[in-house]
């Protein structure tokens, strides 16, 4: 029973990590969209995004540690650092390695944002949009349960949340009440300058 405990934990923690990561990305999009509601001020969105990202890191670490120490998968720590070196499904596991490194980069730069400056932080933060789909695909291809019904349901649900938030951000009317006024002013200034 002990032998398989690590293996089952990896799979469970992987599913939870994906759910948390999806929640974090969704909240990130909502933060950028300056989402707020009665009883839910803007800073709550941002703070929850931050808190959950730290939580997600913990479960991601659990997923990676149990995977590389599982004696039956005998992946070894190198697999978690150098992509595509796994004996087991190298391509898909390698995507997981890449996703972890992207997430770590985003997290570290966020923690050091004050030192790095806003521009550098922002540039790296965009990598989150790459990390999430890579993690999702990693789960489908590398996961023992990749195509199991329950995992597919989790994938669909997570993707639904993220894609809805992104679509809303792209296509919804701007929440900024002064947006039109700003646009008109900008246009007038451009006309003045080019005259």
């Amino acid at each position, binding site marked *: 029973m002990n032998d398989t405990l690590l293996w089952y934990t990896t799979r469970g923690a992987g599913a939870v990590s994906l759910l*948390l990561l999806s929640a974090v990305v969704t909240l990130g999009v909502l933060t950028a969209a300056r989402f707020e509601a009665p009883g839910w001020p803007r800073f709550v969105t941002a703070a929850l995004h931050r808190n959950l990202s730290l939580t997600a890191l913990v479960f991601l670490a*659990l997923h990676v540690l149990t995977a590389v120490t599982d004696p039956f998968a005998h992946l070894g720590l190198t697999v978690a650092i150098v992509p595509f070196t796994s004996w087991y499904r190298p391509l898909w596991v390698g995507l997981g390695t890449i996703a972890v490194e992207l997430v770590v980069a985003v997290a570290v730069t966020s923690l050091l944002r004050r030192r790095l400056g806003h521009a550098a932080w922002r540039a790296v933060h965009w990598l989150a949009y790459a990390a999430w789909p890579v993690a999702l695909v990693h789960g489908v291809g590398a996961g023992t349960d990749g195509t199991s019904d329950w995992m597919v349901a989790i994938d669909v649900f997570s993707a639904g949340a993220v894609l809805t938030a992104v679509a809303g951000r792209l296509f919804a009317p701007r929440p900024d009440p002064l947006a039109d006024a700003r646009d008109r002013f900008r246009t007038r200034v451009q006309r003045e300058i080019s005259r």
Partner: protein
Amino acid sequence: MTPRSPDARDGALRRLRGLTAGVAATAVGAVAVFAAVAAATIPGQPGTAARATTSTSSSSTVTSSSTDTSGSLQITSTPQTSSSSTQAHATTGGS
């Protein structure tokens, strides 16, 4: 809207802390739940071979993996070959 009062702000902060703690606790439970679901769907006991997909029909005794007898695998080695190596049909070549 930005909270108009310290009370509203405190309420929002409480909600934030509650959500964070709630999600963290749920996540811990979820790992256990999903691990159990994973174990139930694809157990793959390492001592035996992974189970072949068993059909829903009754006693498929021949063509399912009937060798996983309660987790341990029988392995029998040949007795000392001195007496039993009659080699009546030796493995001569001939593919």
